[in-house]
């Protein structure tokens, strides 16, 4: 154990909260000594493999399973028509407009496939290999249909993805906001600026990303007991249970869902998937435990993608740079079906395009559109990175237009620290923040002025490697979410969270939490909170989660909600335990409860040396030999907490890039961020969240993009082509914090899980564009690949997708080849 793990046992006990505790869960997670779903095996378990469509849009004219059924070890082959009567439709829980079109989404396609990778049959066999072998033998006849891959094209409604709804547009949502002092709605404000101000318009592209969690999705269903049990590598066991019950007509009480240790999600496992439905249906039909684990190729192709949005942003301002109006017109790609949140994901951006700035009027105009691509949903930040990108990009572009320093322009327009609490134009009340402090600190750590001088020098010298500086002063709304607000936004469920504390007879504690970690370190952070509040050693606190039989209530982990909602529920439950224990302690000490005070694990009678430890009180409640009349023999307590408002972390991120104008290569020279996430429970966990978040945001800016060819085949179908960076590709990250406590919760905490991702993307792209300003460049589409940057330097139009010849998923590039088709003998071109 290292120094940080040692509790000093001096006079004043060291507080757990604020200590950089090593994470309890890391030993088992890092050494692999844990139960990932795929590591589990049940007696008599069968294995499933999926037959997936190689076509992006086709009618299924026949599915011949005879040969597959005769293959050794095969138990069953199940098609869409076999399940047609029972599979119902996968759920979408966010009807973003009353008119929203929500087409049916069968788990196994019955007559039409709408994206490459959609499941058309499922093979069940005694071994994974036998199942995989038989997949090849299922003979599906497809009649290909025309494909539509881009949302703008889809909006023409020439090829309909769901003919039954008559259009490719799922919903059109418009939200208009204006302050009391505004001259009118956003159109009026823009009109005013046209005559006596500036109107500035930009189009940005949010490319499609793939969440790329480390553990591929895996699930096992055991139908043999009284309750059907589903283990799944999911972020949302509780939501999954409710929706399985509702969608498949299984009584909820007959279902138990377990998310064991889960190897990452990033929103990618915030889904109710066809694979889970199929596993449950097939296991129940066969009466045997069934397991399905996807391959990485399947994951990239068919687990949901993120982002994928065209943005048109109009900014109105006075001549001095004071912003007045903002219009965000968006077309968001839903893929082939509406996912769990569907249009709700881009809708989460509705409150964030205005960022930290004081606009008079704002309009959010969103169209959600179907295409023949994989479905999209939450990916780290979900809606807020898209919004933050647009506002932070346009602020940099606008500063350039005005010839102003981008930080100066921001300072002119942001909410000053005296103005909190501040109601944004979108109607959110930001409780606290100090943008000036975070910015000042970041500027200093970055050496902003010196780097600007260095940039001048390189420009003057016509240096082959130019320096660019990018800014992002972001805020975000997280801690999803106040249930009433969700209701008002037409989301189907609430946003509360549940916790319980079980006081064990010997004085140790079990904490049950409804938020389900998948790598965040809840077990450690919750232990720190409870250890301080109950005065028990950190080691004596055990945190339980992720099994609907143990943590029977909860709404799981996403939207940076665990601490700010789930953690507060824990605090509330602890308070109830203390309240109950105070009554018992008073009885034991023959004092009145009013005279008892509780500190550091001890109940004392005020003004005396009489006291009882929490452990003694716990035992008294357990043996129950002498409890006061009417007091139940239990100190356990439950609490459900529904936040009144969101949480608003903010921060200033500064990025310097070297751009090699000869090759287009971008190297991050310096990255500094100063985040304000309020109070910190464990700085090491925060550091980890910020680092991981930054990397994913930087990666959107520079590396990642899901690309389809014109037939709708995913070109980036393996990690050879879907570029995820590793340590050598990233700079040292300088992270720091300012601490403006949240005023809306007892811990003063704000969410941190998504902040880095939300903030960093525009900082990096702003830096790239800044380096290229002398060439007249005002945008480089993401990812800012060397090729695109080079094209920008050449003065060529950038952003046109260069795509390889159509390739067939079966013969596509592999983990072990460079991406070109092996045509010769050396690797055997035959795909038997």
């Amino acid at each position: 154990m290292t120094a940080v793990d040692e509790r000093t046992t001096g006079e004043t006990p060291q507080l757990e909260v604020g200590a950089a505790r090593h994470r309890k869960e890391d030993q088992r997670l890092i050494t692999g000594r844990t139960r990932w779903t795929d590591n589990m095996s049940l007696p008599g378990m069968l294995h499933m493999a999926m037959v997936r469509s190689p076509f992006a849009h086709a009618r299924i004219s026949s599915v011949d399973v005879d040969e597959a059924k005769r293959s050794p070890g095969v138990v069953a082959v199940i098609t869409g028509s076999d399940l047609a009567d029972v599979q119902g439709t996968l759920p979408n829980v966010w009807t973003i407009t009353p008119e929203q079109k929500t087409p049916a989404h069968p788990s196994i396609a019955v007559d039409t496939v709408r994206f490459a990778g959609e499941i058309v049959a499922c093979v069940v066999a005694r071994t994974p290999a036998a199942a995989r072998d038989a997949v090849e033998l299922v003979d599906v006849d497809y009649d290909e249909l025309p494909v539509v891959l881009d949302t703008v094209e889809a909006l023409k409604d020439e090829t309909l993805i769901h003919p039954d709804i008559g259009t490719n547009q799922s919903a059109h949502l418009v939200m208009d906001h204006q302050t009391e002092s505004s001259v009118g709605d956003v159109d009026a404000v823009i009109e005013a600026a046209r005559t006596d101000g500036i109107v500035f318009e930009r189009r940005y592209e949010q490319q499609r990303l793939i969440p790329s969690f480390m553990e591929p999705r895996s699930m096992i269903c055991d139908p043999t007991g009284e309750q059907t049990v589903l283990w799944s590598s999911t972020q949302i066991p509780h939501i999954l249970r409710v929706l399985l019950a509702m969608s498949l007509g299984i009584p909820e009480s007959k279902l138990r869902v377990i998310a064991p240790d889960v190897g990452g999600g990033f929103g990618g496992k915030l889904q109710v998937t066809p694979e889970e439905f199929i596993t449950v249906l097939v296991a129940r039909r066969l009466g045997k435990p069934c397991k399905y684990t996807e391959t990485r190729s399947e994951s990239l192709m068919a687990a949901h993608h993120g982002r994928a949005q065209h943005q048109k942003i109009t900014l109105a301002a006075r001549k001095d740079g004071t912003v007045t109006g903002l219009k965000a017109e968006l077309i968001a790609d839903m893929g082939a079906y509406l996912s769990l949140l569907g249009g709700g994901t881009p809708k989460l951006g509705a409150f964030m395009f205005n960022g930290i700035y004081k606009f008079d009027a704002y309009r959010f105009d969103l169209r959600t559109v179907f295409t023949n691509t994989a479905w999209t949903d939450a990916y780290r930040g979900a809606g807020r990175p898209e919004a933050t990108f647009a506002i932070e990009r346009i602020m940099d572009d606008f500063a350039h237009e005005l010839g102003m320093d981008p930080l100066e322009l921001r300072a002119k327009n942001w909410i000053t620290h005296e103005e909190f609490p501040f109601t944004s134009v979108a109607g959110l009340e930001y409780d606290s923040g100090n943008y000036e402090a975070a910015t000042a600190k970041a500027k200093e750590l970055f050496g902003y002025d010196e780097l600007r001088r260095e940039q001048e020098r390189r420009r003057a010298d016509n240096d082959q490697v130019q320096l660019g500086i990018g800014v992002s002063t972001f805020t975000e709304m997280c801690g999803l979410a106040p249930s009433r607000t969700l209701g008002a936004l037409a989301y189907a469920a609430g946003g509360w969270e549940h916790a319980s504390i079980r006081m064990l007879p010997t004085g140790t504690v079990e904490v049950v939490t409804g938020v389900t970690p998948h790598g965040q370190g809840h077990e450690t952070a919750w232990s720190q909170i409870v250890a301080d509040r109950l005065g028990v050693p950190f080691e004596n606190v055990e945190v339980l989660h992720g099994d609907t039989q143990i943590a029977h209530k909860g709404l799981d982990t996403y939207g940076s909600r665990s601490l700010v909602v789930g953690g507060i529920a824990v605090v509330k439950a602890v308070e109830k335990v203390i309240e109950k224990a105070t009554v018992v302690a008073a009885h034991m000490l023959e004092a009145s409860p009013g005279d008892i005070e509780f500190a550091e694990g001890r109940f004392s009678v005020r003004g005396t040396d009489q006291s009882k430890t929490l452990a003694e009180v716990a035992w008294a409640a357990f043996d129950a030999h002498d409890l006061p009349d009417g007091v139940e023999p239990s100190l356990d307590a439950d609490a459900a907490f529904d936040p009144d408002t969101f949480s608003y972390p903010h921060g200033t991120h500064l990025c310097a890039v070297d751009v090699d104008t000869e090759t287009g290569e971008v190297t991050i020279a310096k990255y500094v961020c100063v985040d304000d996430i309020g109070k910190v429970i464990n700085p090491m966990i925060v550091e980890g969240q910020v680092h991981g978040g930054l990397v994913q945001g930087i990666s959107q800016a520079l590396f990642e993009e899901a690309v389809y060819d014109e037939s709708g085949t995913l070109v980036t179908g393996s990690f050879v082509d879907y570029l995820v960076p590793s340590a050598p590709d990233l700079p040292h990250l300088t992270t720091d914090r300012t601490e403006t406590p949240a005023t809306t919760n007892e811990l003063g905490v704000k969410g941190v899980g998504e902040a880095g991702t939300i903030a960093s993307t525009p900082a990096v792209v702003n830096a790239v564009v800044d380096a290229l300003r002398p060439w007249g460049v005002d945008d480089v589409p993401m990812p800012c690949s060397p090729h695109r940057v080079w094209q920008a330097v050449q003065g060529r139009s950038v952003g046109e997708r260069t795509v390889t010849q159509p390739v067939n998923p079966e013969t596509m590039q592999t983990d072990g080849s460079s991406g070109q088709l092996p045509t010769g003998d050396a690797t055997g071109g035959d795909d038997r």
Partner: protein
Amino acid sequence: MIPTEFDYHAPESVDEALRLLAGAGDEAKLLAGGQSLLPVMRLRMAAPEVVIDLGRIEALRGVRDDGESIVIGAMTPHFEVVESALVHEHALVLSEAAATVADPQVRHRGTFGGALAHADPAGDMPAPVLALGGELVIQGPGGQRTVAAADFFEDYFTTALGEDEILTEIRIPKHTGWGGHYEKFTRVAQQWSIVAVAAAVRAEGGSITEARVALTNMGSVPIRATAVEQALAGTPADADSVRAAVAAVAEGTSPPSDINGDADYRRHLAAVLTRRAVLAASGA
């Protein structure tokens, strides 16, 4: 990610391997480090019925000095090539190129011979071998033959190796005292080359006396830039002179267009990277 069923053999000599290969005919695949073969088998793009693992044939592994040349066994893993003092001294560019292959795990399993036999146009081993005028020693049922690198690579993933033959070792003429540099252009560290350039240069008194240059991923096979080599001979080892000498390096090449860049961009990169490789190799 499960391959089809296959029979597995692990012979301990080249002769035994050749017999097994002859017996299995075109249903067999040789397995070296498996870093290219296993992924395609797991994706079922290859489905050999017989896999013959060369991993137990000690004779195929290691680097030795053979007078005018160094000789590298086909089963020598990349990391041994990187760490070999002989390679470093006599074939510096090869040593540098091997260090850029993938990541440490892949370099410990993947082999020099496997990389050449695989003949991926984006692979990093073929170009330096070509630049240094390497020769590939091949054993078949009829005995041994030697093929010059220039004749070995025939097309995408296609070499002069017959189905019944085994690549046993590679002879690299010594380039002692030459500088060497492999300039590899990628977007992320573990990526295959978008374009790369292998350069070996002999320089004296600030001038290039001789140069060997070959290009990775500028066509279906690695390309020796002979015209550039000639233009470089006698050129001062400075940026402007080298820039002029290598300007036409991409002439006549047909590089691929893909998500990492179109053919034009690759041609441009080839000239930039050749200049950088040559300058680095000449110690400038």
